[in-house]
């Protein structure tokens, strides 16, 4: 078996200045001091341990006798190492918000969509951030209230303006939007334009994260990723991850999240699913097809895969299997057996009777020198590589150049030279061992998730712990940028009525506001519609049988609303319908007050 080895020829070097720019003895000192002595070798460890045990016993007795109120700060957690970072993980405890930059400064970007409304007097509540101060010299993680776990790799930030890598203490500002009211209050759009279609997203969890150092905005260093385990009560796997592009107010598709059950009886299949995302873990990849049997001496062309380490993990059950070309499949030329293929994919054919094996790689091809030259720019590096660094090659009529090649064949996986009983026993043994490996890894993953959850839940009162254990899942994804991230799916419309509404205030005057927001009480989304005339709003889609509230932030910054009971009485028709809105003065002192009012309608 060949080892995995990549060969670069004449890779561009790094200058001494570039290397010197990354020297930072201070960081080395900090890390060395932090890890200098094992904890048990430190002075006073035994004494401290005894004191700790006594304290723990006292706390336990106290805890048993009187339930504690819900804590808002996180419990310290040491994460199991799940990344390839080298520094030890560090527990992070959020600092007091008063020591950090002022809230309103932070919120300027978030509230951009409501700029018009915000400039009006009186409207100010917004979903508050929680502040975490982390030492970015080391890998860190924090647990947000609600259970979300954020993992930050070491040295993963740099300044937005100068692109200067930062070390030391960094302030992370984090908040979540738990429901449609949070989304509405924060002024976040849920419209999603794709291929000219205007759709609405509904969320299974949304959060915003930002980083600052000494008040200076930071961004994530390219190549680094923050791992988010977003606590959610929606376990469906039909959601995607989107990021909000604030200037354009567009949600950008970023991929798919993975759902992990974190209750005490986790869903096995979703835990497995997460495990498959782990780059170091073997993946099921394609469907496992049984080899056919028995093997007869066949004149059909056959080949054997020499699997690299990574491929072997993915397809252990193909190790030792020959592939026999299906009648009618394209043949493999002799020279193609000499190629070290870069990638191979195996999938069942459309009729599932055999397998499609697709190879991609490069092959050396003889081409006319003049033809090749006419296609290439006169690049000295290319000449050097093609002609071996000397000028004699210029005289050749033909030269050898590497070209991309794709080979696709249809083949049966077969065992060769063994009796059928032995073949099938081997096959089941290999598949069994592989599945056992997957299950073991899934078990470890579940155990880790449960541990994290228990540590989190341990700081909360029993009712909340039980509630979380019953309902909560993690939606797991990695992000490489700060901003607003959302696990969303397109809201699938039920039979709807299309109506045009004319909003009026209690006195019968046309109501002006920047947008009309609809909240369906059973959907985690805000459906926004924009005005096209005096108090008239574009055609809106509604479901008359649903429980729906209307909200408009008026020019004065007050809240115009229509309660679900009033909505139910609306005369839905093809005509423009007048909707008389109630007005609530915006004297809310916090987002929570405003939310309580909206939810109470």
């Amino acid at each position, binding site marked *: 078996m060949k080892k995995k080895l990549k060969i670069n020829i*004449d890779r561009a070097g790094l200058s001494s200045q570039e290397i010197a720019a990354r020297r930072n003895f201070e960081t*080395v000192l900090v*890390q060395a001091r932090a890890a200098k002595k094992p904890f048990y070798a430190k002075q006073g460890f035994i004494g401290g341990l005894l004191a700790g045990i006594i304290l723990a016993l006292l706390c336990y007795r106290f805890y048993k006798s009187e339930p504690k109120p819900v804590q808002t700060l996180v419990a310290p957690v040491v994460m199991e190492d799940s990344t390839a970072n*080298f520094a030890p993980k560090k527990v992070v405890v959020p600092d007091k918000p008063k020591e950090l930059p002022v809230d309103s400064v932070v919120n300027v970007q978030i509230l951009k969509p409501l700029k018009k409304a915000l400039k009006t007097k009186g409207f100010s509540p917004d979903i508050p951030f929680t502040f975490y101060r982390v030492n970015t010299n080391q890998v860190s993680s924090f647990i947000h209230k609600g259970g979300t776990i954020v993992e930050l790799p070491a040295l993963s930030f740099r300044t937005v303006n100068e692109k200067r890598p930062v070390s030391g203490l960094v302030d992370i500002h984090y908040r979540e939007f738990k429901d449609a009211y949070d989304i509405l209050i924060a002024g976040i759009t849920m419209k999603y334009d794709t291929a000219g279609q205007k759709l609405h997203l509904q969320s299974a969890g949304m959060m915003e994260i930002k980083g600052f150092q000494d008040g200076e905005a930071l961004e994530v260093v390219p190549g680094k990723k923050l791992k988010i385990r977003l606590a959610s009560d929606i376990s469906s796997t039909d959601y995607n991850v989107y990021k909000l592009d604030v200037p354009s107010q567009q949600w950008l598709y970023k991929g798919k999240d993975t759902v992990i059950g974190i209750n005490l009886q986790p869903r096995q299949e979703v835990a497995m699913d997460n495990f498959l995302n782990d780059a170091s873990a073997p993946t099921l990849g394609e469907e496992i097809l049984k080899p056919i049997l028995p093997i007869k001496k066949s004149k059909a062309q056959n080949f054997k895969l020499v699997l690299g380490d990574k491929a072997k993990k993915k397809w252990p059950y193909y190790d030792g299997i020959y592939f026999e070309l299906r009648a009618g499949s394209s043949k493999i030329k002799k020279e193609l057996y000499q190629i070290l293929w870069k990638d191979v994919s195996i999938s069942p054919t459309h009729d599932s009777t055999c397998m499609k094996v697709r190879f991609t790689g490069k092959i050396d091809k003889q081409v006319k020198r003049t033809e090749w030259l006419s296609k290439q720019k006169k690049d000295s590096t290319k000449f050097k590589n093609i002609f071996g660094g000397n000028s004699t090659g210029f005289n050749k009529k033909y030269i050898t150049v590497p070209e991309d090649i794709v080979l696709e064949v249809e083949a049966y996986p077969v065992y060769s030279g063994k009796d059928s009983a032995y073949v099938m026993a081997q096959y089941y043994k290999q598949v069994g061992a592989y599945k056992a490996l997957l299950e073991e890894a899934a078990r470890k993953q579940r155990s880790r998730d449960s541990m994290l959850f228990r540590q989190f839940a341990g700081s909360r009162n029993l009712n909340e712990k039980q509630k979380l254990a019953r309902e909560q899942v993690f939606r797991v994804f990695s992000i490489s940028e700060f901003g607003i991230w959302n696990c969303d799916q397109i809201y699938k419309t039920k039979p709807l009525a299309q109506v045009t509404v004319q909003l009026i205030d209690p006195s019968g005057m046309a109501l002006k506001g920047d947008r009309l927001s609809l909240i369906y009480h059973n959907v985690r989304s805000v459906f926004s519609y924009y005005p096209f005339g005096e108090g008239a709003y574009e055609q809106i889609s509604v479901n008359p049988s649903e429980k729906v509230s209307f909200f408009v932030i008026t020019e004065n910054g007050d809240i115009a609303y229509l309660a679900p009971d009033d909505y139910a009485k609306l005369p839905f028709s093809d005509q423009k319908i007048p909707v008389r809105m109630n007005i609530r003065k915006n004297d809310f002192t916090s987002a929570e007050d405003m939310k309580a009012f909206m939810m109470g309608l």
Partner: protein
Amino acid sequence: MTTSSAHHVSMATMEQELRVIAAAKKDPEAFAPLYEKYHEPIFRYIYQRCDDKEAAFDLTQQVFVKALIHLHKYRFKGVPFASWLYRIAKSEVYQAFKDQSLTRTLNVDLEGLKELLQETGEADQAFLKSEKSLTICMTELPEADLQVVEMRFFESRAFKEIGEILDITENNAKVKLYRILEKLKKCILSQK
């Protein structure tokens, strides 16, 4: 074969380094001059073996962190302090390969490759073909052998230094290389 002269460390320099190390054992901040001196060579050693610049910087930092942590265990054995650092670097890099957080990469330059082909007696005609065979053959080499070839031909290290890094004698390094070249030669011939 030209080799780097950077490794030739005089006794006076070694003594000076020992004084710094003695001071650093008491106060880690005194280690700064050695960090400044060896940061680049250690980084280049690591980056030579991988393809990820950021990971190479991270690993370099980790090497010095480990060096500081274990400095109290360091004993002078008549070889430059750099050899000790290289051994830590080697251990860190191979741990990263083992964890699969890094892909083992062989960074070769055409000059080194030509020299290697000359040593195997395959440099003359059809350089391109030989080069391809050679790269295929190198993937067949055990890791220990590959390290020797890499240090000798693509990092231009003296046998003495190779011996110190691998904790073998200079003569042993020479013999090893000779045997590896024989192996490569056979492999190239079989590729033709």
